[in-house]
C-alpha cells in the first residue's frame, strides 16, 4: 500500500474500515427484524411490515459459497480495471443468520479453481484500484481462516 495515498472506500457506507476484521454494514428493520444489503435507512422490504425506518447493522463476517465465477475479461466502466488486467473471481456468499446471499469480489490471488459451492468464506478488505490521490478499498470474500467462527 502506498503511504502517500489516502485510503477511501469504493462506495460509502457498505462496510467498516477495520482492516483486520471488517464487516459489511447492512440495515435491519426495527419492527420485523429483517435484513437488507446494500444498506438503506428507510423502507423495509418486507411487504407485510409497514416500518419505514431501517437501522444500520453489521452483518456476519462468515458464510458459505452459494455460487462463484471468474471474470476472465475486464468488465466495462464504471468498473476500474488495472492495466494489465488480471482475472479475478466473484462469489455469492450465504450468511446464515441474516438469510442473505451477498455477491462480492474474491480476494486477489484466489481464483475460481480454488472455490467450491458450500465453502466457508470470510470478509476482508482489499484494494480495488488507485488514482493519483486515493486508494479505493473494496470488500472481498476470502477462504475462511482455519479455526475461525465459520470454519469450526
Amino acid at each position, binding site marked *: 500500500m502506498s503511504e502517500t495515498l489516502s485510503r477511501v472506500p469504493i*462506495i460509502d457506507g457498505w462496510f467498516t474500515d477495520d482492516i483486520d476484521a471488517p464487516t459489511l454494514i447492512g440495515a435491519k428493520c426495527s419492527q420485523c427484524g429483517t435484513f437488507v*444489503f446494500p444498506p438503506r435507512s428507510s423502507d423495509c422490504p418486507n411487504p407485510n411490515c409497514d416500518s419505514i425506518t431501517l437501522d444500520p447493522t453489521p452483518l456476519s463476517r462468515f458464510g458459505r459459497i452459494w455460487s462463484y465465477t471468474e471474470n476472465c475479461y475486464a468488465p*466495462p466502466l464504471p468498473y476500474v480495471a488495472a492495466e494489465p488486467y488480471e482475472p479475478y473471481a466473484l462469489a455469492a456468499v450465504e450468511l446464515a443468520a441474516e438469510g442473505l446471499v451477498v455477491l462480492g469480489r474474491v480476494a486477489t490471488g484466489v481464483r475460481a479453481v480454488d472455490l467450491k*459451492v458450500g465453502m466457508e468464506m470470510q470478509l476482508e478488505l482489499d484494494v480495488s484500484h488507485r488514482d493519483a490521490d486515493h486508494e479505493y478499498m473494496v470488500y472481498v470474500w476470502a477462504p475462511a481462516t482455519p479455526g475461525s467462527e465459520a470454519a469450526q
Partner: protein
Amino acid sequence: MSNDRDIAILGVGMHPWGKWGHDFTEYGMVAARAALADAQVQWKDIQYVAGADTIRNGYPGFVAGATFAQKLGWNGARVSSSYAACASGAMALDSARAQILAGFCDVALVIGADTTPKGFFAPVGGGDRKHDPDWQRFHVLGATNPVYFALFARRRMDMYGATAEDFAQVKVKNSRHGLNNPNARFRKENVIADVLNSPIVSDPLRLLDICATSDGAAAMVVCSMDFARKHLGNTDGLCRVKAVGTVAPTYPQSVLELPDIASDSTAVVPAPARKWKDTIAFAAYEQAGIGPEDIDLAEVYDLSTALELDWYEHIGLCAEGEAEGLLRSGVTTIGGRVPVNASGGLACFGEAIPAQAISQVCELVWQLRGQATGRQVEGARVGITANQGLFGHGSSVIVAR
C-alpha cells in the same frame, strides 16, 4: 381450446437478427409490415400500438409505441410504450391484451426493435449513479451480465454434476435447430469441441455458451376473437394467446438475480416453496388451465447454455437437478417429446431486447401453423415461452391452436 380470455394472433413478422448497425426503427418497419401482411390487416385499421422500448436509442426508443405509429403514419391508433428489460415484449403484449379484453380496442400491433452496441452491456445514463443498483454492480463488483449467468451455471455443476459438455450440448442442439431459420443470425452448426475450444468469458461459461447482442425486430397483430371471426369468417385453426404471465417476485426473493448485489433476507419470512423463476410459467399454466404435460414445444431464454437447462426445471419439464438428463435423452431436441428452442433460441439469434419476447411468440405461431420450414415440430398444438427481464420481470406466454 377456447375460453373468454383468449385473443387471436392474426399475423407475425420479423426483421432478421444480425449486426447491421442501422436505425432501430428501420427494423421495426420491416417487422411491422411483415406482421400486417401476414395478418392481412391494413395499417390504417390498427387501433392500438403496443411498443416495447429500447433504452439505448435515445428518445424514439423510450416512446417506441409512438415512434412506430408515427413512422407507419399517424392513423389515430392509441399507443403505449412499455419497458421490462428482456421481458418488454411480453409486457407490450400484456398491454395489448388488456386493452382488447377491456373492450378499448379490437386489433392491435405489438412491436419491438433494437440496435445494440458491441460487447458487454454497461449501465445506461452516464455519470456516477451511486443510487442505481445497475451502476453499483458494475463499479463495486464488475458484475457483468455473464457473471450472473455463470453463477447459475457453476451451481449446476457443483450441485447436480453438470459438465462443460452438457452446456456445450445445448449450443450444439440449438445451432442445429436454427440452421435453416431465415431470421436467425448465426446459422452454423457447432460441435461440442467448438464450444469447449472457445475462450472462457465468465468461468465456467465460454464464449459460445453465452448469447451475443443483436439488432433485430419482431411484431405481431393481435385481436379480439370477435374481430378475428369477422375478419376471417371463422376462427378455425387460429393461433390464440391462452395466457400471458408477467410475474414479479414475492418477498423474499431468495435467489440472487441480475442486477442485485444481495438476495432478500429469509431471516423473518422464509423463502417461498416455489421460487420466483419457478412461478413464471406456472402463472401462465394456471391462466390457460393446462400443465407442463400439455406442452408440445417451448421457447425459453437461453442467455447462456446453462440457463436453458435451468428453464427446463422452471417450466416444469423435469424436476430440479434433472435437466442435464432430459437434455441427454433427446427430449428437448426436435424429434423429441418437447423440443426447446426449435427456433435456435438466443444461441442463434442473440439478444435484441425489446424484440425477443415477441420473437418467441412468433416462433410458436409459425410452429403451430406448420410453417417452420426446416425446424418444424410435427403436430405441435400448444407452445409456451419463458423469459426474464432485469429487476424482477418474469414473462411466459402460452399459445395454442
